[in-house]
């Protein structure tokens, strides 16, 4: 397989602006921080969730609870995504019942990750609502799922991949389109 980096879509500043805007939108829609908590989907969604919480704290002056969700055990395409995904811990140390959950992931594609995340969340309690934040929506949905807050919509072809790189794991912030062709 040949991977070719095609274009850089977002950089450090534009990622920050997108998340900052989403922070404002979340606060506007929920009328403040009351009853909201932020849960990121491992791996990169967890870092984005932390950042979003920091921006919200910066804007409102109030901390919100942040959790991390590992959805490995809930996937319906376990064997398709990787030879063997490693099971990590879910880390939600607060009650989600009657909360408005802001669910965060990096890329929305088929919708199967989000479907798994919804199943996992309802095993933890009955939230009042679940709202979805994604940094990138690349289309090609296979399930009736949509995001409530989107950093950037990027129409893509099936043979393209979106790579979200974050300083916390990858050393720097950027989003790139990668061309993937079978050799």
């Amino acid at each position, binding site marked *: 397989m040949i991977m070719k980096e095609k274009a850089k879509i977002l950089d450090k500043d534009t990622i920050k602006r997108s998340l900052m805007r989403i922070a404002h939108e979340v606060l506007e829609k929920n009328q403040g921080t009351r009853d909201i908590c932020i849960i990121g989907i491992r791996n990169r969604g967890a870092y984005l969730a932390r950042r979003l919480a920091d921006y919200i704290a910066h804007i409102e002056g109030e901390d919100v609870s942040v959790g991390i969700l590992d959805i490995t*055990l809930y996937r319906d395409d376990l*064997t398709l995504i990787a*030879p063997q995904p*490693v099971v990590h*811990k879910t880390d939600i140390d607060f009650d989600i019942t009657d909360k408005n959950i802001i669910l965060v992931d990096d890329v929305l594609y088929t919708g199967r990750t989000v479907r798994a995340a919804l199943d996992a969340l309802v095993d933890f309690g009955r939230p009042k609502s679940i709202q979805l934040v994604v940094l990138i929506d690349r289309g090609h949905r296979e399930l009736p799922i949509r995001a409530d807050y989107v950093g950037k919509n990027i129409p893509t072809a099936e043979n393209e991949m979106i790579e979200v790189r974050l300083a916390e794991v990858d050393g720097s912030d950027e989003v790139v389109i990668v061309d993937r062709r079978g050799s």
Partner: protein
Amino acid sequence: MLWKRKDLLGLEELSREEIELILDTAESFKDVSRRAIKKVPALRGKTVVNLFYEPSTRTRVSFEIAAKRLSADVINIMSETSSVRKGETLIDTGSNIQALKTDIIVVRHNCSGAAAILARHLDISVINAGDGWHEHPTQALLDILTLKERLGRLEGVSVAIVGDIAHSRVARSNIWGLTKLGVRVTVCAPKMLIPAGIEDLGVRVTHNLEDALKDADAVNVLRMQFERDEKNAFPNQIEYFKNFGITKERLARAKRSIIVMHPGPLNRGVEISSEVADGASSVILEQVTNGIAARMAVLFLVSQAQDNKE
């Protein structure tokens, strides 16, 4: 690290990396048992058969709970109440279980190598839940998980295994696992209960309990299996307790931080005093809890290996 084995037969054949993968996976599974809804759908639609030719409560219940928390369906077959009593062979029983379109057999048998025979004849996964004097890998895994959690590391720590080493599959699996992970192991028992050549497995042998406990970070106390004493060769219980029983007085001369493990069931007043079993150093019930996570990890990994093959 990729898990490729359809079976778990023992720790002897596993690499250090494979054992570490099971331990890491088990740590992640611990949190499932702490939730209000103690269940994840990872093994939904799979069937696990517990095939037990020897009496067992804790191991069978632990496997059953582990499988159910992964959403698998579980069937228990006890040899006393099955066709085994009519003379059916192990392989025939296994083939029938496979023909019922099940996915995993968890087998306990009094013959060493029984799990390996089944694994060789069947396409479905086989997990060894104890075979004769050979191995009891999930017990060793839960012991090691408990050690790692309590001591914070494994490399360089020192563990004493005290008791009937000769007849103990728990001891053998522990020795294979611990030595691969860089743990220093000392075995301690009366001469007749130490098998010849055990030093070749990389362990230190002593017949003096005080010597065994001196530098130990943990002591794993084995149950004296009097039901296996066919030749009447064991020391009597009082004599054994006097020389090898783990008591408060003996622990007072060991490291203050020493932890005490026991695979159960306990013979109070034979290999361990009640005071120690119920005392602050004891992690015996934590072992029981960790057994669920260790077995969930093994069930999950062998099931994944099967799915990847298809």
